[in-house]
């Protein structure tokens, strides 16, 4: 059964290995250059006081490969679900070869477990390898970036790609099993996977751990903007802060009154179109405003990674269990 599974999976495995190898070469060539560039620009910029320019220039380096990497990491698990998962059973049922396989001297439980196990492990291995390469290659960029918890970076690093892959693969197999046609099953896999991943990122991930809620006197160092709003420009006034919490994932940051309600003005005397920013800042500093920041600190990156990976793996296991149940009872 292992030989047959490998023989059927070979073509897909070769394509994926080829793509991984190409990426590996690209990373191997450009990775050391990126490290060198970091050492010569960003690492030395503090001495020359032009860090923001240096960082901007550095981040713009290898833009093509950066974008490609992001695309591969987002699309990779979906592709695995579509091209490895969906056809696994759907194609056999479509052309009837499952009746050939199931009437050899092998139970269909064994047939399915070997198929699921082998291709599932391959999916996870491919994603793990990809993530490892990307994490290594991006490390100089990550040192000046938004941090690993930023939603666009989080899904491309560490171990979550393994969970996504396992889930997408199991999802593809399940869709193929229920739909019996490869192409519609691929489409459903893509749609459901995208929906689950997006929904998870937007609605679930932040709440995996209770966030830190920082309430303190307004830190003038964090104030990055002030402005008037409302009708005629003087009914309301806002103070915007950008908390300096490196790598943290901030969900809300707002300025409140001493009583705790959101600060909305009125425009204090000393602020507005006729005054300088420093004059206005001096006024704001005397107003006893407070700040509320809700965030997940950067140190929780690996905890989040483990939680999310475990959840996706659990979903994959549930789907695989469903497939086993379905194949044993329903298909003929």
């Amino acid at each position, binding site marked *: 059964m292992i030989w047959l599974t490998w023989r059927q999976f070979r073509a897909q495995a070769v394509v994926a290995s080829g793509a991984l190898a190409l990426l590996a070469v690209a990373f191997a060539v450009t990775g050391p250059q990126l490290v060198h560039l970091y050492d010569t620009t960003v690492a030395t910029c503090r001495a020359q006081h032009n860090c923001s320019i240096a960082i901007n220039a550095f981040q713009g380096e290898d833009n093509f490969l950066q974008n490609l990497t992001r695309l591969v990491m987002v699309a990779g698990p979906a592709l695995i679900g579509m091209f490895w998962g969906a056809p696994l059973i759907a194609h056999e049922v479509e052309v009837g070869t499952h009746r*050939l396989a199931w009437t*050899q001297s092998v139970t269909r439980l064994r047939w399915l477990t070997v198929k699921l196990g082998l291709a599932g492990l391959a999916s996870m291995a491919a994603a793990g390898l990809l993530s490892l390469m990307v994490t290594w290659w991006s490390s100089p960029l990550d040192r000046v970036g938004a941090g690993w918890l930023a939603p666009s970076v989080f899904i491309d690093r560490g171990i979550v790609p393994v969970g996504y892959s396992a889930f997408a693969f199991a999802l593809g197999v399940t869709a193929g099993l229920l739909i019996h046609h490869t192409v519609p099953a691929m489409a459903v896999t893509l749609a459901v996977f995208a929906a689950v991943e997006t929904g998870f990122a937007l609605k679930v991930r932040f709440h995996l751990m209770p966030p830190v809620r920082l309430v303190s006197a307004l830190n003038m160092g964090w104030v990055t903007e002030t402005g008037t709003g409302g009708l005629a420009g003087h009914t309301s006034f806002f103070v915007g802060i950008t908390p300096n919490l490196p790598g943290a994932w901030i969900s809300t940051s707002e300025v409140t009154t001493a009583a705790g309600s959101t600060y909305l003005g009125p425009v204090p005397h000393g602020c507005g179109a006729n005054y300088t920013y420093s004059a206005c800042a001096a006024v704001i500093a005397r107003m006893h405003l407070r700040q509320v920041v809700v965030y997940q600190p950067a140190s929780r990156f690996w905890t989040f990674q483990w939680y999310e990976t475990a959840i996706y793996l659990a979903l994959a296991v549930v789907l695989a269990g469903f497939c086993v149940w379905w194949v044993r009872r329903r298909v003929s």
Partner: protein
Amino acid sequence: MTAVLKAQGLGKRYRRRWALSDCTLDIPAGQVVGLVGPNGAGKTTLLHLAIGLLQPTTGQIEVLGDRPPANPAQLARVGFVAQNAPTYGGLTVAEHLRLGAHLNPGWDAVMARDRIERLGLEPRQRVGKLSVGQRAQLALTLAIAKKPELLILDEPVASLDPLARRDFLQGLMEAVVDQGISVVLSSHLVADLERVCDYLIVLVGSRVQIAGQVEHLLSTHHLLTGPRRDPARLPEDQHVISASHTDRQTTLTVRTEGPIHDPAWTVSKIDLEDLVLAYMSRPADAGRRPALEVQR
């Protein structure tokens, strides 16, 4: 003789439609069994129940003394070729044999290779490039080389041209004689089976109409021709299977164990094709239940 296939009140329902109902059979070993019926009669359903691809809704089925699909050991004792003889189009002929060797403990590699050679199949050829007849032969090779005691073939010759049909049945019969395996094969055309079957099952409208040894069926069915009369007035032991009338003449197909004494009838022998057609043309719910049926 022991039974290769025993069914008792066997039924299978898909949603609200019964594909097979109230099927009771007892097929002895060492026979070539033909399963005949129009398309959609339930032949495939019965065969899939026998190999364990389906589970019955009602009743029981035993194949070689076990309920299918019991375990790998039982699977090894039954060879199966599904309708249209599915094979892996992307694999070569040799890889199919390798697949058979990997998945079947009783695999006879020598026989499989010999058979492929005799058929003139190139081992390195991709199966997707073979003709329909060659694919059917390959599927049959896979099923035979696992050394089964029972071989189940679902419409094996339906898609073959007459020459491939003859070759296929010839190859099948050689294997049957060589290895003494029992065979169940289905077709919607009795002509396909006439030359090879010892035992016949007629399945119409999800019900078994009649089942028995071909010789016995031929000796208990008669074609009666005579002056026009009402078939209901026949003796008790004569069951009318089909009747047709002209103004002056009546033609009946009748089943009876005893002789026919009425001098008004001209009794002639019936051939298998007419016998099957008589059952097929009967409304599905007409007539008595088949002789073998057991009331539950």
